[in-house]
């Protein structure tokens, strides 16, 4: 505790971000079908109390309609923040994301903007099975026009949501909802007052010298592994992108220049996944630095089972992460 910071959970950080930004900019409003009760799985009472129903638009369950109408409202100069709950639910709105949100600026020759923030959760460990466990960020990384954000800590969640509300590209914000309580249910000290986390900037969570480890939507599990490996004398540098698009390749490259090794841990699938993009970028620009092959630890190309005993084996497990790191560090030509 200090006079300059205060402890918040991941969810509280998000509510703080909305509160501060909605006070600053009257164009910001909320849309969601769990409003007025909750937004992003967090109680929304304080927001409703302060900003009233006029800035909390209640919707039916109509993902395509909601995303499309948010696009329209954004084209009119407002800044909708849309709660889509789970990434799996948002598939319904795929056309609206791709053909409307991402393209209306371009198709107007730059005359219209779509400054909307679409928020969805990734929830590995939910035991909810294949239809509720999607991680759609590689798809949206593939579509020109979006900023794709994936913060893992309360600090980054608040800072990136605030940054998203101060720029004019459509944003898809993936919230960490896994496993179980976000950020392990813990609180993190974050600064009092206004701050933002710049979009497109990675963060070095831990300095290290042997291998660069890049976790994507899997920071906490990865850190647990890295802690253990430290006891074995393996020094990992952990670089979390936070923004998946645009990716901060410079930051990862700088780390790989130092360590010569790269392991990417990603809960999306390997084919055209986020880890694939990181690996390809480093192969492309950092080949000369590499002392070992770039390794990916991902969720295999299979659907997500509901049974806990099965599901726990599907995500990048501590064992698989540790094995990949050891293999990279031990690699000799």
């Amino acid at each position, binding site marked *: 505790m200090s006079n300059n910071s205060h402890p918040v959970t991941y969810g509280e950080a998000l509510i703080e971000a909305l509160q501060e930004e909605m006070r600053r900019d009257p164009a910001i*409003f909320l849309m969601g079908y769990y409003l007025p009760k909750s937004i992003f799985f967090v109680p929304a009472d304080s927001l409703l109390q302060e900003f009233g129903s*006029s800035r909390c*638009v*209640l*919707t*039916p369950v*109509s993902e*395509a*309609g*909601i*995303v*499309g*109408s*948010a*696009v*329209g*409202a*954004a*084209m*009119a*100069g*407002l800044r*909708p923040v849309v709660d889509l709950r789970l990434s799996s639910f948002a598939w319904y709105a795929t*056309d*609206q994301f791709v*053909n*409307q949100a991402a393209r*209306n*600026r*371009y*198709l*107007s*020759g*730059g*005359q*219209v*903007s779509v400054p909307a923030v679409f928020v969805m959760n990734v929830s590995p460990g939910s035991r909810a099975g294949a239809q509720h466990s999607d991680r759609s960020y590689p798809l949206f990384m593939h579509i*020109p*026009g979006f*900023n794709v954000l994936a913060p893992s800590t309360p600090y980054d969640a608040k800072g990136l949501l605030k940054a998203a509300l101060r*720029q*004019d*590209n459509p944003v898809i914000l993936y919230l960490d909802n896994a496993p179980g309580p976000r950020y392990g249910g813990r609180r993190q000290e974050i600064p009092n007052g206004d701050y933002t986390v710049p979009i*497109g900037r990675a963060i070095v969570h831990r300095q290290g010298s042997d291998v660069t480890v890049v976790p994507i939507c899997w920071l906490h599990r990865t850190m647990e592994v890295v802690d253990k490996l430290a006891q074995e004398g393996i020094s990992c540098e952990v670089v979390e992108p936070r923004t998946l*698009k*645009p990716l901060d*390749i*410079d930051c990862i490259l700088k780390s790989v220049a130092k360590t010569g090794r790269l392991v990417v841990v990603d809960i999306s699938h390997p084919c055209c996944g986020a880890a694939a993009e990181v690996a390809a970028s480093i192969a492309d620009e950092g080949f000369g630095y590499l002392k070992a092959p770039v390794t990916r630890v991902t969720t295999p190309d299979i659907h997500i089972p509901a049974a806990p005993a099965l599901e726990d084996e599907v995500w990048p497990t501590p064992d698989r992460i540790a094995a990949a790191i050891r293999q990279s560090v031990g690699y000799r030509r």
Partner: protein
Amino acid sequence: MTQHLVKADYLEMFRRMQTIRRFEETAENAFKRGEFLGSCHSAIGQEATSVGACYGLKNDDIMLGTHRGHGHVIAKGGDVNALMAEMYGKATGCAKGKAGSMHVQDLSVGAMGECGILGSHVPAAVGLALAMKMRGEPRVSLAFFGDGAAQEGTVHEAMNLASVWKAPVIFLCENNGYFNYVRTRDRCSVPQFVQRAPAYGMPGTTADGQDVLAVYSAAQAAVDRARRGEGPSMVECFTYRYRAHAFLSGVGGEQEERPQEEMDYWLGRDPIKLFRLRLLAEEWATEADLTGVEAGVEQAVKEAQTFARNSPSAELKEVFLDTYADLSPLARYLARQGVQM
């Protein structure tokens, strides 16, 4: 005279209809000569629906439309030079040549964009209306969509949302009887889409889509209702397109076969011919007035084509602009490729 329309209105409606007709004929000929590529969806035959629906809108009311959209933008009062130049892929086009025939617009008159994916734009029209309502503005939003798009889920979700929010939207269905080359009524649960309006808690009316004044009256009632804050309406206009679904340069279009008696019936109800006869019969305009308008349109469309032909091509660096609000997401690519912006 119909409602509060005066002679100048009739002549302006006639001018816009005639402009659409001549614009489309000019574009079709140019396309077939290979002067521009891609696709070109002709709205010939549907002029009364476009103009009747848009004429009651104010400049700051928003209209969104379809792939068959040149006529919508002209009906809303858009600049034909920028439209034609867009189709020719020129820097002076309404989207600097990036959008092409299916995505024309003129934001200065509230024509905020045509859309190439059936029904995809309709939720955005609801969102635009929601924004107007949230700001307490007395504006309305109108979405054109066809009988094909009326079967898309987005249109249904949009209608429901508009009703829930009491958003000032007009759902303007241009039923020309065919989606692509398929007769819609063979693949639709109801003979008229407007039958679905009550299911979404909104009034639905129909109009003869070849009678510009009938369309105007029906649309105006919906616009007035929306402006009064009473929420959305649907208007279905029965019309006909004379040409095939599309002229395409890339892929071959299927041959359309439509019954000759059907074609003859609709050609006999040509919207421009009907309006012209009415204007003269009711003595709302003289032959000289109309000839004058036609000559003016001829000149304007010719000038638009000359403008398009003579305009410079879009600069190559334009391809990197307008995907993002600024170039920063592309900075790495541009630097590595050595692209100077």
